[in-house]
């Protein structure tokens, strides 16, 4: 089928491999996104074939810890940061709860006092009404007495009886009026006392509300300070983890390099012996290949003065005949090791030598040849 798209002949293979120049890659990406079905189909077929190539990699399983770390990372994403101490987490809630209890108690107390006040006011009102009715009664009795006095006296005996009755009634009314007055005064005092108590309770409530707000502010500040401290500790731990990871990567890289060397093709070995009294009984073994690099391990190397170091030299078939492989690090127990990365010149090596050179090494071998070995 003839292609209708001008991009059909593009390098979809190299595009899928990521092996094209960025500008061309961008152009082809834009073309795919434009929805050209023909080119998309071509690209997906290439992608599938490349994934089969990926499938040719030897099957290796990751450690179980990877899944654990991944899920921990994901769960950390889902949950907000928590404070380390449960106390600080719940402290604001505890304070708020305590203040709520206090406010409810105060509110109930105030409600009770207000209820008592209302009752006292009602009682005062009733007493006042009683007094008014008594005063009205007194007034009417007074009027009756004067009208009784203005009537013609039928008999002297009837009049004195009525007068005595009226006086008794008047006394009674006056006593009742006094009692009502006393009760009214008492009720008013009670009202005043209750009002004072209400005022006190209101003041106290306002004070407690203010204290509650202060406590809430303090809790929030403390929480914030605690969070800052924890954040600083976390940053410190993360820095330490990073440092240790870098060191671990370094150690693992070294191990991997050694593994690669030992499995590389055309691996050669040279044993070195001491060729100078200053070398003592030191010996060394070197393994090397162009693809794997050079690993040289020495034993019983004498301690050198501070201004000196051990340097390893490659002696080759073709020029330059002698080149440095690097400096050997010496341990206190006389052991030393050097690893040099892969290099084509290792294929030319016929012999190795270790000399003592000034600290920092030399461009060309000047020191004493202490160990030597050849193929």
């Amino acid at each position: 089928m003839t292609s209708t798209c001008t991009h059909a002949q593009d390098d979809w293979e190299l595009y899928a491999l990521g092996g094209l120049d960025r500008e061309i890659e961008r152009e082809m990406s834009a073309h795919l996104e434009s929805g050209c079905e023909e080119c998309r189909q071509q690209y997906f077929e290439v992608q599938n074939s490349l994934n089969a190539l990926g499938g040719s990699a030897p099957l290796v399983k990751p450690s179980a810890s990877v899944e654990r770390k991944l899920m921990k990372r994901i769960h950390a994403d889902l949950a907000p940061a928590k404070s380390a101490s449960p106390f600080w987490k719940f402290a604001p809630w505890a304070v708020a709860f305590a203040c709520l209890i206090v406010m409810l108690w105060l509110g109930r107390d105030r409600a009770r006092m207000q209820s008592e006040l209302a009752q006292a006011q009602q009682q005062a009102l009733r007493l006042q009404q009683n007094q008014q009715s008594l005063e009205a009664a007194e007034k009417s009795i007074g009027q009756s007495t004067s009208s009784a006095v203005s009537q013609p006296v039928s008999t002297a005996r009837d009049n004195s009886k009525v007068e005595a009755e009226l006086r008794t009634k008047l006394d009674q009314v006056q006593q009742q009026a006094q009692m009502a007055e006393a009760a009214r005064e008492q009720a008013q005092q009670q009202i005043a006392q209750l009002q004072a108590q209400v005022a006190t309770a209101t003041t106290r409530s306002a004070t407690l509300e203010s204290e509650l707000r202060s406590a809430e502010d303090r809790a929030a500040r403390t929480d914030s300070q605690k969070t800052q401290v924890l954040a600083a500790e976390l940053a410190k731990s993360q820095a330490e983890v990073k440092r240790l990871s870098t060191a671990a990567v370094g150690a693992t890289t070294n191990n991997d390099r050694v593994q690669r060397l030992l499995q590389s093709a055309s691996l050669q070995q040279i044993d070195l012996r001491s060729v100078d009294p200053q070398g003592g009984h030191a010996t060394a073994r070197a393994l090397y290949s162009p693809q794997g690099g050079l690993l040289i391990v020495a034993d019983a190397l004498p301690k050198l003065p501070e201004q000196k170091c051990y340097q390893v030299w490659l002696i080759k078939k073709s020029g330059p005949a002698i080149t440095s492989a690097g400096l050997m690090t010496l341990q206190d127990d006389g052991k030393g090791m050097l690893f040099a990365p892969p290099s084509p010149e290792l294929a030319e090596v016929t012999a190795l030598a270790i000399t003592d050179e000034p600290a920092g090494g030399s461009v060309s071998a000047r020191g004493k040849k202490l160990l030597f070995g050849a193929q």
Partner: protein
Amino acid sequence: MPSPEQDDSFLLAQVEKRDPDALQALYRKYSNRVFSLIYRIVENRSAAEELLQDTFYRLWERPHFYSAEKGTLVSWLLTVGRNIALDHKRKESRRAAHHVITPGDGEGFDIENLPEIGALTDPDLSRSIRQAMESLPPAQKSTLEMAYFEGLTHQELAERTGESLGTVKTRIRLGISKLREALRSYGTALLL
């Protein structure tokens, strides 16, 4: 928790809803395959494990970056894993670029930390995929492997092999085309 046999599209929809169990199911389904590819590229177990984590975390962070139009989910995961591994490898290469044999630039390390050397084993290769690879002419196979596992551009491939750009492109094109045909003839469903 969804079972690993559930459809990828279902699991992905759950991941978009921030269901960690769905992500875990996808991890259990595809982690071995993705890890094998990453490990093949970086040749370092601890680095490969970190990068595997990053690959699946990227799916968690941005599930919307994948769409069925881009191919299967495992295909997308392998592509992301490969890209992350190649980026890492390039960074490591830049870091190690100063390692040349010069005076005063030696590397010594603790003699006690020499690893035990065991034989490399080659387990569980999919037989049909391996046979398909073996059926490629050597030049096409090695060019494809360098391009895929080392991430070399066509320019770098030309320099490495000493061939012209045109030859490199042809080898890659033909190699992929033959791989596709070989896989079809083996009846291997390109589920990848």
